[in-house]
């Protein structure tokens, strides 16, 4: 959109007015160019479209008899265990998403307003974004493990704890691991979003008598809501489908949906049930992303 207001772009568009009429491009000519798009389409078809179509189709086919059935969906939704797992997954994802955004926003604000600080810190705190989730898991073990973990040892040395806590292998351990992974992503995205908000707007509010905090809350924050929603959707869908961290940190409590799917697929050999449950989770995760996009398009384009 910005390019429309960029004078150099306007000049370029005028000078590079197509030598041949756009609509007049012949059928043969388009076919020539289309040929170059084919490899990309072939890869997407073979690696994405066909497998996904097969996944959805198989989830409606009975594994034993081969007849069409919706029983895998029905039995999933009727199963108390599945619904509880889904519930705890969503609860975990929602809680962590909210905590992540709240933790990341103030830091992102500071980074967005201080260029020097940002130039130095953003690359440093971005390092975990380019680590496999597995490495984040190892880091969490080193931090939180009951006897060898750095946190437990430090707390016991100071005397706050008399014996180690076992939070690593429970809800708090996973929540901390997810919050860490989520915060790292959210800080970077929200910094970018906040950078697009003109600081002069906030300054204007301050000169008109608002406090700095009030100006942030009533002027800057509302302008960032689309970006915040986008970041939340990303973090939420990341957690709902995360597999490595739940398994690395005790896959029993809380039982996450991805673990359930993996067990159905491999241990229990209930492949088609696993397919149906994968479809359910995907609809949930992608639904959040699409909802985020819809909100974005409603409130205007991403600033």
């Amino acid at each position, binding site marked *: 959109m910005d390019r429309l207001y960029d004078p150099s772009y306007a000049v370029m568009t005028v000078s590079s007015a197509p030598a041949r009429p756009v609509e007049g491009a012949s059928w043969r000519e388009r076919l020539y160019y289309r040929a170059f798009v084919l*490899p990309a389409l072939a890869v*997407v078809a073979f690696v994405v479209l066909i497998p996904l179509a097969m996944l959805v189709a198989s989830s409606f086919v009975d594994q034993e008899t081969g007849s069409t059935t919706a029983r895998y969906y029905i039995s999933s939704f009727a199963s108390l265990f599945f619904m509880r797992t889904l519930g705890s997954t969503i609860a975990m994802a929602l809680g962590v998403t909210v905590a992540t955004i709240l933790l990341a926003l103030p830091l992102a604000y500071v980074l967005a307003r201080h260029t020097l600080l940002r130039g130095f810190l953003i690359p440093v705190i971005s390092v975990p974004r380019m680590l496999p989730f597995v490495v984040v*898991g190892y880091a969490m073990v080193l931090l939180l493990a009951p006897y060898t973990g750095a946190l437990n040892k430090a707390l016991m040395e100071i005397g706050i704890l008399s014996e180690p806590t076992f939070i690593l292998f429970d809800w708090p351990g996973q929540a901390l691991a997810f919050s860490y992974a989520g915060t790292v992503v959210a800080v970077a995205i929200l910094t970018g979003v906040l950078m697009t908000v003109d600081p002069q707007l906030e300054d204007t509010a301050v000169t008109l008598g608002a406090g700095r905090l009030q100006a942030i809350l009533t002027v800057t924050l509302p302008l960032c809501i689309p970006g915040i929603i986008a970041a939340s959707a990303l973090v939420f869908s990341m957690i709902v489908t995360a597999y490595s961290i739940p398994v690395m940190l005790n896959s029993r409590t809380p039982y996450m949906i991805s673990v359930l799917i993996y067990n159905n697929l491999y241990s229990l050999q209930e492949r088609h049930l696993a397919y149906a449950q994968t479809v359910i989770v995907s609809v949930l995760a992608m639904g959040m992303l699409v909802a985020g996009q819809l909100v974005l398009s409603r409130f205007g384009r991403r600033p």
Partner: protein
Amino acid sequence: MAFYVAAMIAILILPVLLVLAASFQGGLEASFGSRRWTLEAYRAIPPAYWDALWFTVRIAFCSTVLALLIAVLAAWGLVRGRLRERRLVSHLVVLPDAVPSITLGVALLGLFIPLGLSNSFTGTLLALTALSLSMGLRFAEALIGNVPEEMEQAAVTMGAGRFTAFVTVLLPVLAPGLTIAALFLFVHNLVAFELLLFISGPNATPISVRLFTDIVDRGVLPQAIAMSAILVYIAIAFYTLVVVTVGVRYVAGSALTRKG
């Protein structure tokens, strides 16, 4: 406020520092006190880990080259041919990003097992190529869109074919931008996990999957911590390169992050 910022930075960096510290302290626990510093954990890295890392580097390299090749051709066709299906293609190509990795992994397993592509270099290569296409196409479209078409048209008026003009005139102009794109794609492919977990096997084990199966089967091992530290060095090297070549601005607002 300053305290909050310092605390947040410390919290965000601490886990990574712990991995680095532990890797130099025998690998099983980390402390910043008086423990002796040693390279034992690094020496304990078994050949299987180096094999997995080498496999990951090879597959990331090949998939990056393949994805960029396909993406540049497609972007050229879409931009220069002014094809009306440009939006549709962009939407299709972005699918592997939008679909959760675990879903795509389960789906690929269903297709690849009958074809004999699971647990193979080719299968992993295809999966990573598809995953890289969206970013590659976005880079390539933006790069080609910024180059005036006259440059190629001049070559065509002098008798070159359109494709010759593309290869000899446009590609050299795009080369620096494509190199940066390749850097991003390469690191993304290096750290992919959930997509590959399902289609990996003894013949095709990326390092992230190897580290994962080891902690599940055998618990925390010193050599796994050392290998994690090596992955941290790779991430640090990546960000250093990005900051040096394109500047910090690119890191700040970008939503580019590991997939799965």
